[in-house]
């Protein structure tokens, strides 16, 4: 292997011009690798801006032009194929919000509870089994969750609740909760694991019970990580498309109960983009919804960042 022998040889003393050149040549692979890694790091920024640019470019003509933002945000009439077309997303927005809220109210307690159990209470053997199982849960493709929603959960909900239709907020909320739990558990567990053992030992020495340790010591210490876990779960829930399209019933209305079918922003794009004329109004409005989703995701992440920074600031004082 030629590379190893070159490295094993004593470095030429860089007094002569040839020597300096050789020394530089020896560092070349290292510099190349450094450059590649740096590009990998910057690529994330590039991709985010590129995606935003393309989505915005497709949506902009409509956003700046004919689309009345008043109707867009306040009307529940989403009917892009009527004449004239109506582009009101209030009901779609309420669909996304209701499904996300319900799924988080299930997934956050379940996910954080599981994270606490795995990190603090389980024996090493159970811990390994649980972690592997939870990772498998995360690996189930979203379309398979959609099938479960459609074929299993749908008749079950009708049977148990006498709901007129089993594809509704409840169904989508449960499916999304199950999809976000693995994210919340693995990130939450990492956050709890990162709390130094000396904290636990100190609390034990002061006579704290195990619950007091979790509630009084671990929660405050791991607050940032736990918050990140929850927000990643929220992001998963807002962005999920295929499973929600199948589980939510895809009905454009503001839900009056958890048993009402709804239509979400993501599912609308998925169901309608394929059939639109590229460059047509309908096509562009779907991209405007894309911009809106982008803005929502950005707001969630920014809030998370600010909250985390705020907490840090207080701790430092």
């Amino acid at each position, binding site marked *: 292997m030629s590379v190893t022998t070159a490295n094993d040889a004593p470095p030429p003393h860089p007094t002569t011009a040839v020597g300096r050149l050789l020394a530089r040549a020896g560092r070349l692979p290292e510099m190349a690798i450094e450059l590649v890694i740096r590009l990998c790091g910057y690529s994330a920024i590039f991709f985010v801006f590129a995606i935003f640019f393309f989505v915005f470019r497709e949506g902009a003509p409509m956003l700046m032009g004919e689309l009345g933002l008043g109707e867009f945000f306040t009307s529940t009439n989403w*009917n892009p*194929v009527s004449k004239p077309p109506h582009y009101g997303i209030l009901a779609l927005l309420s669909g996304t919000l209701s499904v996300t809220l319900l799924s988080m109210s299930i997934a956050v307690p379940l996910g954080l509870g599981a994270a606490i159990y795995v990190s603090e209470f389980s024996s090493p053997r159970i811990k390994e089994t649980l972690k592997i199982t939870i990772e498998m849960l995360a690996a189930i493709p979203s379309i398979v969750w959609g099938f479960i929603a459609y074929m299993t959960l749908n008749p079950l909900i*009708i049977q148990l609740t006498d709901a007129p*239709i089993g*594809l509704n907020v409840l169904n989508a909320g449960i499916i999304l909760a199950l999809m976000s739990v693995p994210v919340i558990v693995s990130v939450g567990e990492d956050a709890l694991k990162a709390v130094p053992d000396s904290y636990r030992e100190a609390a034990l020495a002061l006579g704290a019970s195990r619950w007091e340790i979790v509630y009084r010591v671990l929660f405050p210490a791991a607050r940032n990580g736990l918050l990140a876990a929850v927000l990643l779960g929220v992001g998963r829930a807002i962005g999920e498309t295929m499973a929600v399209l199948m589980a939510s019933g*895809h009905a454009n*209305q503001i839900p009056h109960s958890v048993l009402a079918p709804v239509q979400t922003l993501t599912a609308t794009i998925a169901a*309608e983009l*394929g059939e639109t004329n*590229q460059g047509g109004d309908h096509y562009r409005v779907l991209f405007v919804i894309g911009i809106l989703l982008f803005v929502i995701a950005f707001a969630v992440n920014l809030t998370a960042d600010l909250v985390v920074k705020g907490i840090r600031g207080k701790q430092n004082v």
Partner: protein
Amino acid sequence: MVSFRRVVAGWSIAVLPLVLGCTPRGGVDDSYDTVRVTGSDTMVNLAQAWAEEFAKDHPAISIPVKGGGSGVGIADLCAGKIQIATASRAMEPDEIELAQKNTGKVPQQLIVGRDALAIYVNLKNPMDSISIDQLAEIYGEGGTITRWEQLDVDNAACPSGQIVRISRQNSSGTYAYFKEAVLGDKRDYKQGYTAQSGSSDLVALISKTPCAIGYSGVGYRNETVKVLRVAKAKGEPAVEPTVTTTQDGSYPIARPLYLYTLGEPAGAVQEFIQWILADEGQRIVELQGYIPITAGTAEPATGK
């Protein structure tokens, strides 16, 4: 190094016959021999069956078939991405214009069969007939019928008593035809219907939902759902969707099934279309649950 060379040599020998075997047919002018068919979800099974039967006699022509809705097929045709669009509605004037602008060719319209739109309910629903004006009051904007008892139906399997309106997604030709035939030109759908992206999805959902009612091509009828008889108006006789009632026009909601091509069909496209219009293609139309036509020729699309 020796072993590496040996591996390369081994692989070359293994792969060579594959490469050679592929070239004579696959490489040469395959755009001519591939007829891409995309469009109506109602017609996707039919188009697939045509493609399979046709392939038995014409192994040199490959016919990939995709669904997605009439709107998808027409959009793809306008973009020049496919050779044939299947559609369960006629092309709109602005779509014809777009196709001409993009490809420089006039879309040709061809009727290849007829389809009766069946009204589906759950097997547990005791109802067996419905009228067009009742359907309009269920589905139409401002419609007053929201509960099964308003139709004098004692739907015991549906404790909430609500009628769950299942519809197709708004790109569907079935969606457009139902609006035209049942709601009329002026009236729109009442918002809040549950939209399904495929006819078989719709039938499957109704089979699991006792409160549901929905519409789709009669070709999707199966033993898990019930098909209602339909009357033109309340008091008139209700008619079952069959070949006879569709052909004699007594079943009130039946529509033509279209193929669209860019310009006069030629080459493989023409061969395929002639075969569809001949006995064998029309026999498949009937086998798939649709109603065959007697004669047809391609004509420029007019937008109705």
